[in-house]
């Protein structure tokens, strides 16, 4: 090798980012379909794909493949034991972690856009309707809304169900005999919805690249704005807690402690990735830290502290991060992107 070749080789290798620790010790899979959704169950991480398959990852095993849908797995949820999925084949399925499939409902040409579950209750939405099965009921209770449902979420008690749609959120409360509803109004189209861990707030992501929140006690509105892109992912982080959100060049984390939550307060902004836009947020369970996935495929881990530097967990691979999940005992992490790449690795060096 001539000196010039040597020089060029060194130069090039210095430009290619080194593998991260997680990348070098983890397993790499490439499935031929986009990763669409993921959920952590009692013993595994279940991942939905654009080819209709659900792949279930257990520690120390090869992923188990479930041929679930005849199209895209649009949504996924768990009650711990079972996995619930909705697909663009119109089916709502209940899957065991071992791969048994039970079809709960079939809406044919209407997609099952969102699903949720809490203990013995399972819920899905198709079009404007939400269907709830509780206990061993064979027939679903149907709840109608004025427009297509954007998202579903139970609160921490399982007694309240938030349903987002155009113009706001309907909060359904399970009574002795029937479900009653309250409407939270805000103009615009609401998609993903979630309760705060203490059940005091509801937050939605909107078509208009902003978040909207309500304090349930008095329906005070919380508008969280200034994002350059749509907020595809948000999650509650730490004990305080903070609402960590995607849709910017970093993770924007709004404080929800105190009496007024984020009202009149500045968010904490961490895990800056230059020009890239964050697309997925996953808290590091039990810590005040968050994994942030970006549209170029990179993933950073950062404490919720603007003065700390983030760690590079995954280098850019070119495709948007669409799933990050931590295994139930916090030993493993799974990262998936829209090209169908999965990185499955131990989270810590020594296990």
């Amino acid at each position, binding site marked *: 090798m001539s000196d010039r070749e040597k020089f060029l080789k060194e130069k090039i290798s210095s430009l290619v980012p080194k593998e991260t620790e997680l990348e070098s010790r983890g397993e790499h899979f490439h499935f031929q379909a986009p990763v669409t959704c993921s959920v952590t169950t009692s013993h595994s991480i279940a991942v939905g794909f654009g080819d209709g398959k659900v792949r279930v990852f257990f520690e120390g095993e090869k992923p188990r493949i479930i041929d679930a849908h005849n199209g895209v797995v649009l949504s996924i949820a768990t009650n711990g034991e079972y996995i619930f999925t909705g697909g663009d084949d119109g089916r709502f399925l209940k899957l065991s972690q071992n791969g048994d499939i039970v079809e709960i409902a079939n809406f044919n040409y209407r997609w099952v856009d969102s699903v949720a579950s809490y203990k013995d209750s399972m819920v899905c939405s198709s079009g*404007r309707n939400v269907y709830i099965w509780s206990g061993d009921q064979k027939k679903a209770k149907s709840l109608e809304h004025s427009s*297509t449902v954007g998202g579903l979420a139970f609160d921490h008690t399982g007694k309240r169900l938030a349903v987002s749609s155009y113009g706001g959120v309907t909060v359904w409360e399970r009574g002795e005999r029937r479900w009653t509803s309250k409407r939270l109004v805000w*103009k615009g189209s609401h998609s993903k919805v979630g309760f705060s861990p203490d059940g005091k707030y509801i937050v939605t992501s909107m078509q208009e690249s902003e978040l909207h929140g309500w304090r349930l006690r008095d329906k005070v509105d919380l508008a969280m704005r200034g994002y350059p892109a749509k907020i595809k992912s948000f999650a509650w982080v730490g004990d305080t807690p903070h609402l960590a959100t995607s849709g910017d060049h970093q993770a924007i984390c709004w404080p929800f402690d105190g009496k007024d939550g984020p009202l009149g307060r500045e968010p904490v902004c961490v895990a800056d990735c230059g020009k890239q836009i964050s697309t997925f947020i996953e808290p590091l369970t039990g810590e005040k830290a968050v994994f942030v996935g970006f549209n170029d495929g990179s993933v950073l881990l950062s404490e919720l502290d603007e003065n700390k530097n983030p760690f590079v967990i995954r280098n850019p691979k070119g495709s948007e991060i669409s799933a990050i999940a931590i295994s139930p005992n916090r030993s493993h992490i799974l990262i998936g992107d829209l090209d169908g790449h999965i990185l499955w690795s131990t989270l810590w060096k020594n296990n």
Partner: protein
Amino acid sequence: MNDMSQVPVTVLTGFLGAGKTTLLNRILTEQHGQKYAVIVNEFGEQGIDNDLVVDADEEVFEMNNGCICCTVRGDLIRILGGLMKRADKLDAIIVETTGLADPAPVAQTFFVDQDVSDRTKLDAIVTVADAVHLSSQLGEHHEAEEQIAFADVVLLNKIDLVDDKAVENVQNRIRKINPYAKIIKTNHCSAPLTEVLGLNAFSLDRVLEVEPDFLESDHDHEHDDDVTSLSFVSDTPLDMDKFQAWFGNLLQEKGQDILRSKGILNFEGRDDRYVFQGVHMLMDASPMGPWPAGKDRSSRVVFIGRNLETMNLQEGFEGCKVA
């Protein structure tokens, strides 16, 4: 907006009974080896021969973005997003609208939603019109006018059921609303599919083909609500600042009445052709390479809309010329 990996979306409009489903089934049976997704709203009336049919409600909603007439199709944002996650690549997506639908929210969805415009592109709006009933429908329903005004292609169907004179009359009526749409006269929607699909009609470089050959100043006095079109040409270069000020203000104030606009502009001191096209208040604009050597540099703009004669368009356009 011109990435090759964007999946083209064709929008089929037309009144109930005009022949939309006939056209749809022809596309699906004749284009062998192509993978299409079809989004329908009146599913069940006639069968659709495709394995990927999505049933949706036309959900038109207002954007909270300060643009008063900016409405989008929420169901399209959701469904196009879902279709883009499929493992198999789609060759095209066809959206069939209900008979009484205004095409503007569909078109505006492609301007407003980043995810939609990153992964898909509006190919063309194809309107199927019934040669027997179109004239009366135009008088009774403003949606019929809008469907003609927005069309890149009008399939004038069922011409075997009317005489030549009537065909000519209805064709003149279409021309008056939209002189730029390509009119294809058919029975049973039997038009060549190459004239319906893959047109790229919303791409900016297609605006370069807009021909200034009609320049009628003798507009009949129209009923106030009628949709008409006006076009202007200038061989004198335009002042960029003046044009931006006038045009921006025009769309802001009159965007509700201006259904579609397009133009090629020759700005003083610039070598590039500037091209724009708009739907109501929303606009897409870009320089499109230098003017061809040795050819005249003339600016031309076209408007299709209501009450155009009240907008002083001629004076406004003249005022943009360099002094």
